[in-house]
């Protein structure tokens, strides 16, 4: 907040000045509007948490209660009896973790090669990466051949099947190439003159400079993988391999007509809350880095 204010301070002051001249009471109405917006954006999550503590009878009552009559952990207890949430959590963590590691490693290495090394085929590789940026990995366009491929490789219903199509994403490579391009050649050449190998230049000079960019890419990739749905739904065929979103969606669809919303809200909490906590801790990285990726 304070950093923010000092950065954008000049603009803020001037515009506020403008406004206050036109609206003598200040811009309180804008605060009201934006706060209402905040309620709409955050309210559903609050409602989810409140709902997860309400009894089935209370959830069915019309009109609904706002706060739970008594906070009971009953829904969570039933949820853990019916569904193996620790297992889904593990599955999601393994899948998202490996996808993130692979992307961060590949993106920095390939990004470096495309930005700072000259080799035969460099332009072709870059072109391939750019062309595939538009086609989301393991999206509707490629799920059919991917499924056939995984069947042939005997990988259906395995971690590898979920991880591989997302492990080498073009987006990260493109992003890191843009980043690394801004590093002056002189810095790298100095090390090369001293006899450093390209690997040493990469490890000792380039990688440390990529810190914030790689952190941003890592967070972004992890989230996408954690929330990924279509491909895991297609390729995971048994309950104990499900990731969190697949487990939740499958469960939600079973109860299409007489939904047990207490259980569903508890399940949603299990999927949403870890991500929200990570987001709140790292939010500064986040919003700034995503903006950064957008503008370049």
């Amino acid at each position, binding site marked *: 907040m304070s950093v923010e204010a000092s950065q954008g301070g000049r603009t803020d002051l001037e515009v506020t000045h403008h406004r206050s001249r036109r609206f003598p009471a200040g811009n309180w109405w804008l*605060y009201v509007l934006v706060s209402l917006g905040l309620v709409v954006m955050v309210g559903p999550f609050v409602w989810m948490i409140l709902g997860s503590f309400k009894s089935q009878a209370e959830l069915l009552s019309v009109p609904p209660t706002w706060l739970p009559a008594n906070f009971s952990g009953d829904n969570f207890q039933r949820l853990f009896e019916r569904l193996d949430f620790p297992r889904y959590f593990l599955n999601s963590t393994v899948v998202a973790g490996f996808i993130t590691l692979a992307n961060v490693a590949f993106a920095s290495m390939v990004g470096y090669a495309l930005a700072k090394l000259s080799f035969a085929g460099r332009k072709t590789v870059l072109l391939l990466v750019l062309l595939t940026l538009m086609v989301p990995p393991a999206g509707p366009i490629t799920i059919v*051949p991917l499924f056939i491929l995984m069947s042939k490789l005997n990988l259906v219903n395995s971690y590898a099947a979920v991880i591989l199509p997302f492990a080498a994403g073009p987006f990260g490579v493109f992003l890191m190439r843009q980043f690394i391009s801004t590093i002056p050649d002189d810095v790298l050449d100095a090390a090369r003159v001293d006899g450093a190998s390209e690997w040493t230049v990469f490890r000792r000079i380039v990688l440390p400079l990529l810190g914030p960019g790689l952190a941003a890419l890592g967070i972004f990739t992890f989230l996408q993988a954690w929330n990924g749905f279509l491909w895991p739904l297609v390729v995971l065929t048994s309950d104990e391999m499900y990731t969190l*979103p697949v487990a939740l969606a499958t469960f939600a669809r079973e109860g299409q007509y007489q939904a047990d919303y207490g259980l569903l809200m508890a399940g*949603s909490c299990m999927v949403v809350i870890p991500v929200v906590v990570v987001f709140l801790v790292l939010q500064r990285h986040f919003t700034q880095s995503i903006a950064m990726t957008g503008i370049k």
Partner: protein
Amino acid sequence: MAQSGAPAASGRRLTRRNNLVGWAFTSPFLAIFGVFLALPIVASLIVSFTDFDLGDISNPVGTDFIGLSNYSEALADPKFRKAAFNTGLFVVFGVPLTILLGLAASVALNSGIRRFRALFRVGYYLPVVTSIVAIAVIWRFMLQPEGGVVNVMLGYLGMEGPNWLGSSTFAMPSIIALGVWRNMGFVMVILLAALQGIDEQYYDAAKVDGARPWQTFRYVTLPLLRPGMLFAAVITSIGYLQVMEEPFVMTAGGPLNSTLTLTMYVYEQGFHFFNLGYASAMAYLLFIAIALLTALQFRVLRTQT
């Protein structure tokens, strides 16, 4: 290009060494990228010309090339048309609304709001980071006709809310609204960054010229936001064309296919009925739509500058 310091004399050996280093850095990536990303894009096209089905996975010999039959079948399939229409609705209404609300939020936070700005930004961005499946479950809960919080609130205002997800009139608008709600924070963050990157000089110049606030916004801010808006629009449209989780969880495509989307139908044909050739053809039509829409947006948002 980078290695300007290298003496030209030892040319050939150096070139070979450079190639070796370059490929050492890129080949592990290229192997996985090639097999699991690039190849399937081509393979999907090939499969779309065949009658590939479940039995062909174990024994591909039985597969026949049937030319464009899958495509003509898709274009004549009323369910495919319905899915394409619904997906079109999602894009045509969803994208402009998302951009507009994202723009409004970013301008509000950038110019009028000084206190709690970080809080608002985080709050508005929160839905973007959460799982669409979970969000769809939560909204299904809130949109229940009886006792759902949305209709209860409408009741306080003296209005009677419909059976949102159970009506073929309101189900699709509900799902579009949910998409807008989830993604406007993304647009907001992109445009906030763009707004903060605008050089103060432009505003000073506008002020010297006596521009009113609205004129400044219209003729200074908006044109400078164009690259950010282009990026946001392209990403949002590509995502919206593939919409799937929301109807999958909230309505299962119903009622009466009023919320069936292309990705859902591809999934259903491919992995319920295992008409893999047919599913691929529909997926490729979707691919063409993505390519065309992206090209169109580059045209429109680039040239008007």
